[in-house]
């Protein structure tokens, strides 16, 4: 009897113990370390920050393709660094913009837009996010052509894991509309949150960024749809463009948030990248004072280890660009011709000035905007003095050098000498303006490439490296990542069917021959 009582009490006790078989489980499964929401302003900051890349390898697309296509910076080395230097397909490096932009920038912006679009108190942030989204998608579509746009970044919000690809034409027309609307909606007399890392919430600057970006987007269509281009150029000018370098959109890198291109060149790819001859020659032949800010050379260096301070010179007269078309072995054949000790003796991007590890990354500048405006005036899409605007653009970029480092600053007299000597010449306006755009967009790889494709200037010659894998003279686009063949094959196939072969040759919509 006693034992049965005991048994009963054990049973009852166990019953109690297990009565709440899921008691406390909701609480147990709540993460108390990471928040489930965040002020969208801080998320916006992340979207802005990550647009200048976020880790080591993400910059390889810029370094190995963009810089090489526009013949500004080149590496003779191959294998994982091959790309534009050999006119090769290297799927490891063609995908970086895709993965970093969609996974960091677009995802964060989709959240910011979702959280702000219906909230009247967050109207300014909403419009800022629309502007920034347009900026990011221009880079994506200018790199790959047709890309997921309307359904992109919505893996969580709408559960879309296989977004469809949109035609570049549709994307651009929406970008134009968005930039127009968002810029117009911002009140230039007000400020939003000072937690904004781009402009500290100064809406007049955001508005000018929106309109300057609108001008950039409109000018992209100069060949394929001049009518639309002209319409939106007018809207952009009417809306108010950037007025000075103070309006520039840039990320102010710090010692904690470093400039990844600079980090890559000072670290893993130390001694592997050189200024290309066409770029150095252009600056040299025009006595461009920017050469002394951009370039340095370690005269007589026989090795990477020889690239040390005592050899360093920024003297423009001795700068020597690496000729296009060589690899690390065949480059030997150029040493006698150019009088260099080794490949390490060619000029490089100055890692103490424009690419020191905390050098700012520029997104949209006053200089670029003036140059685009000069072209728009020349084309008759807006009014003004094309020559003066062109000169203002050059001057602005020369003045912008000081923002990298005082060592890069260019004296006012040198600027005026250069500007005076480089006025627009009848019949060569487009070439002159876009050559200057090429210089003014240096280090902003995707923008330099896009404008080169659009304008055809500078008039570069084909990279003569033997065994080029491309059909024409230049790489026309980046192929879609291999990962899309695995995760989004149907939509990918549809995009390829619509746009053309998924290779380096296919021209996308706005890039008319």
């Amino acid at each position: 009897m006693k034992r049965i009582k005991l048994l009963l009490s054990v049973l009852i006790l166990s019953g109690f113990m297990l009565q709440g078989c899921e008691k406390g489980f909701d609480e147990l499964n709540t993460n108390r370390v990471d928040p489930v929401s965040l002020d969208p302003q801080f998320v916006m900051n992340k979207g802005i920050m990550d647009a200048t890349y976020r880790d080591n390898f993400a910059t390889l697309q810029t370094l190995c393709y963009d810089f090489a296509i526009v013949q500004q910076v080149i590496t003779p080395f191959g294998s994982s660094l091959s790309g534009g230097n050999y006119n090769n397909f290297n799927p490891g490096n063609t995908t970086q913009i895709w993965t970093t932009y969609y996974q960091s920038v677009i995802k964060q912006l989709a959240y910011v837009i979702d959280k702000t679009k219906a909230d009247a108190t967050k109207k300014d942030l909403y419009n800022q996010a629309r502007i920034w989204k347009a900026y990011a998608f221009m880079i994506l579509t200018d790199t790959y052509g047709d890309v997921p746009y309307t359904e992109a970044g919505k893996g969580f919000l709408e559960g879309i894991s296989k977004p469809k690809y949109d035609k570049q034409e549709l994307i651009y027309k929406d970008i134009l509309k968005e930039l127009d609307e968002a810029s117009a909606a911002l009140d230039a007399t007000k400020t939003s949150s000072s937690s904004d890392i781009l402009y500290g919430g100064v809406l007049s600057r955001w508005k000018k960024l929106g309109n300057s970006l609108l001008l950039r987007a409109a000018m992209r269509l100069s060949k394929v749809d001049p009518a639309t281009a002209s319409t939106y150029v007018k809207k952009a000018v009417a809306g108010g463009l950037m007025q000075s370098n103070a309006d520039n959109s840039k990320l102010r890198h710090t010692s904690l948030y470093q400039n990844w291109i600079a980090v890559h060149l000072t670290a893993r790819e130390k001694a592997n990248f050189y200024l290309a001859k066409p770029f150095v020659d252009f600056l040299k032949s025009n006595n461009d004072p920017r050469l002394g800010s951009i370039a340095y050379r370690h005269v007589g260096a026989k090795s990477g280890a020889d690239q040390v301070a005592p050899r360093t010179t920024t003297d423009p007269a001795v700068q020597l660009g690496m000729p296009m078309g060589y690899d690390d072995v065949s480059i030997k054949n150029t040493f006698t011709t150019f009088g260099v000790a080794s490949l390490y003796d060619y000029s490089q991007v100055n890692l103490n000035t424009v690419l020191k590890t905390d050098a700012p990354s520029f997104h949209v500048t006053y200089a670029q905007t003036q140059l685009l405006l000069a072209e728009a005036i020349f084309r008759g899409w807006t009014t003004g003095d094309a020559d003066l605007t062109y000169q203002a653009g050059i001057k602005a970029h020369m003045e912008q050098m000081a923002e990298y480092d005082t060592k890069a600053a260019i004296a006012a007299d040198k600027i005026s000498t250069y500007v005076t000597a480089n006025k627009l010449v009848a019949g060569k306006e487009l070439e002159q303006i876009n050559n200057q755009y090429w210089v003014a967009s240096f280090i902003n790889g995707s923008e330099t490439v896009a404008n080169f494709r659009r304008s055809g200037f500078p008039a570069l010659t084909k990279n003569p490296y033997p065994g080029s894998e491309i059909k024409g003279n230049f790489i026309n686009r980046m192929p879609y990542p291999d990962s899309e063949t695995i995760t989004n094959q149907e939509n990918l196939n549809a995009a390829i069917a619509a746009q053309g072969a998924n290779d380096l040759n296919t021209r996308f919509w706005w890039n008319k021959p």
Partner: protein
Amino acid sequence: MKKKLLFLSFFTLVCQLFVLAQTVTITGKVTGQNKDPLAGVNVQIADGNIGAITDGNGNYLIKALPNATLNFSYVGYLDKSVKLAGTNVLDVTLSVDPKSLQEVVVTALGIKKEAKRLGYATATVTGDAMATNRTANPMSTLQGKLAGVNISTMGTGPGGSTKIRIRGQSSFNSVNQPLIVINGVPMDNTTYALGGGIGARAGQVNSSDGGDGFSSINPDDIESITVLKGATASALYGSRAKDGVVMVTTKKGSSKGGIGVEFNTNYTTDQALDFTDFQYEYGQGERGVRPTTAYPQSGVWSFGEKFQPGMRQVLFDGEDWPYEPVRNRYKQFYSLGTNLTNTVTLSNGNENGSFRLSIANSDNQGILPNNTFNKKTINLGFNQTINKALTIQGNVNYSNEYNKNPPQVNTQDMAIPTVIYTLANSMPFAAMEQNQLMPNGTEFVMSRFLVRNNPYFSLNQRFENIKRDRVVGNLSFRYQINKWLYAQGRIAQDYYSRYQDYNIPNGYAPIPAAPTGFINGSYTQDVRNFRERNYDFLIGATKKIKDFGVDMTVGGNQMYRKTEYNSVTVQDFVQPGLFTIMNGRAKDPLYAKAERGVNSLYGAADFSYKSFLFLNVTARNDWFSTLAADARSILYPSVTGSFIFSEKITLPSWINYGKLRAAYAEVGDDNVAPYSNALYFGVNNNLFPNPSGASVPVGGINTTLVPNPGLRPLRVAESEVGLELKMFKSRVGLDISYFYKITNDQILAAQTSDASGFTNKLINIGESMNKGLEVQLTLSPVRAKNFKWDVNLNTSYNTSKVLKLGTAASDTVISVGGGGGRTIKQVVGLPIGALYTFLYKRDAAGNQVFDKASGKPLRNDVPAYVGNILPKYFGGITNTFTIHGVEVSTLIDFRLGAKMIAGSNMNALRHGLHKRTLVGRAEGFVIGKGVNQDGGVNATKSDIQPFYETPNVLGVNEDFVFNAGFWKLRQVSVGYDFTKHISKAKFIKGIKANLVANNVLILKKWTENMDPENVANISDNETGLDFWTPLPPTRSVGFNLNIKF
């Protein structure tokens, strides 16, 4: 019968009185403990050649001297010797050899059952088999010993982890490791994985194998390991046992009384095995030119010139070295590893209780000179009867592990194995050893591939320490309420604290210089705390009414698990050479915490009819904290039955025992990390300046995984049938199982398009099937007095099929991992783990297509299916020969029917080491055999180096898709038990010695330049992918000595 015997003994007694012959006739009956007669028992007169065998009723008859000693031996039972002492009738009861464990099996929840009652397959290995011929991680010793169990090691040093698969792999993309249970209580076997797992911080250069949970066990403490293979066997363990259970029973003190002291020492040496067969005709250099200046450094390229006598090269150090092959790189670089384990055991006991205490120290020196692994364990087991009804039993295992400098594997940065594998074939080791640091203390770069560091720099400048203190223990109270009823309560906890730190050395070339005033480098310090608590209770009742017996058990379990992670990484330092958090410039802290709970109620009923028919029914309900409220409860049943037909049906006399069994069970599993139900954000550690310089926060969605709040538990339904036979006087034993398993509603992190903003999405998806056949065969072909030969053969066939994926019929493919053109997918209609890679482009006629301009090979647009990663067949054959007491044992194991991409060959190819790169060297160019895009015959000359770099650049791995199978001579041991030569009175009561060898020979393999098992991809799903070489496999040779006092 009794009367007969009485009469017989009376008769013999009478005879003895009258016949004074030298020999007498002895008769008797041999029975087991349960009084069943034993047929076929060997009866032998000691020191004589006369022998007899018992008949079908266990009776024997033998002539012997009146004072002779009779030896009784029988398979599966302990030998017994009885001195006649004047009697003519000698009935003997033999007891079951606990080592054979054929009869009693430890089943789920630690409940012991007679094997004949079981309706499912189990497999058991004794502690001896693990302790004698051991490996640093005891789990890898089991390779090849258990039917249906596949164990692989990683080549990551002595502190490395193992991967276990029971009955293949059933789930698409989650953990497939079995549950580890020690004395009835679960133990955490988390693997601290290579780069990207919980062992590594994002963005940090660290890719070492941080080990698993099982390494905390000392094999000397293991009494036996029982593997419960199917869902049916493990139904009572519920969710965590869906991939089977590895049940470890530790040794206990004997109740016989008297202090027992035992000492065991084990010493082995490990030697690196080299399976590379590289070209040594053309030396270091690029594009056909040998290095004649220090720069550009080549270091890891062998695309140089043909070796000619007397040639010289200028290497990265600027010095002039002979240009000649440097062969046997493994032998030159890797040292001899050593492993020494000493265990002292103390035990005592009486009828009221016993205890066993063991203290062990294990020192392992890896084949890398700076890699050591030390493990100290203390194990205490006790049981005590408090009064007639109450018994307390407990076991505590404390371990202290220190893994020093585990190598970097599966990566490039400071990964010594990768560098040694890809090193230029004329690179003298002396050049690297002499030039590790520049005069200013920074790294002396030897390759323009900066991340292929000088291996001596990595050895001497990089450090990593992993230390773990762990206590796993349980305490159980059992109250025998009356003869047929008991109640049991148990508390158990697995707790460890794990410390890890590692650096990136000052002056490491691939990282940027520090800002002025600082020196570059980085340092990370991690502390993890893990706690798992289990409370459970069991109430059991046994009733027997006539021929019917019932055993009822009900119980419940409450599991709670918490992991905490504190970590700080710092970058750049004030004081050179001082790696501390305080000395760092930029500090990046991280804290994470995860909690989960599972509550369960379960019950089992065991019915028996006589001693030949058994039925077992179980039910378990689990509640998971990780799942949504409406989906977190799941009930799963199991039914098993067995029929000992040999007791019911008249069988041919050569069959001693026959059993049929059948089982069906369902198991569910949450199989998902805590907090997978919501999207979480992260705030960046450091603020960012706004334009006016004020610091403002930055943060965002900090995951690339789309959460899912509506996840349901995964479900497994498994059926199993089996047949057990003992034949030819138990000299042949056969155990066959067939299983069929359907896994439903898997929780899968399916890859999504990057354009979705995420890389993966958690979904409940799909259905897959696994089926297989397992055969275990034991043979005793020879059982002569001084020669015994035993064979144990196990083999299994496993196959699987993906039946359904996604919600729409068009969802037929999901990608689960890979990179570099090597992908593992789940594809409807194919077995689990389909391997895909790009193929070379071919025209309709099958000719390879080359680029007209460059002459380089082209690839297809879409990756192709090239095979499956999971082996179809695996098993082992153990032969044991006992010759005059000397026991010689060999184990041959095999794994067949799987494919792999041996990607380390890709590295050998692109670096000019692979023999395939010899084609075209003499000419200085390659003209690929095939056509060009226009259809014409390819005539374009391609430079050698770019031609052989192309497959890697394009991700075309078709040249290196190999059969991943092998046949290996896994273990050899020779042992002798000296105990019989020691008189009982001596201080020493027993000595046993064994010579052992592990990983002795590869008898057959298909991969080039590597051992197919030597793959350091620890991700639970990514087998069959190889790229960066891990440490080479090793052959170990040594001895084991066991002394009892």
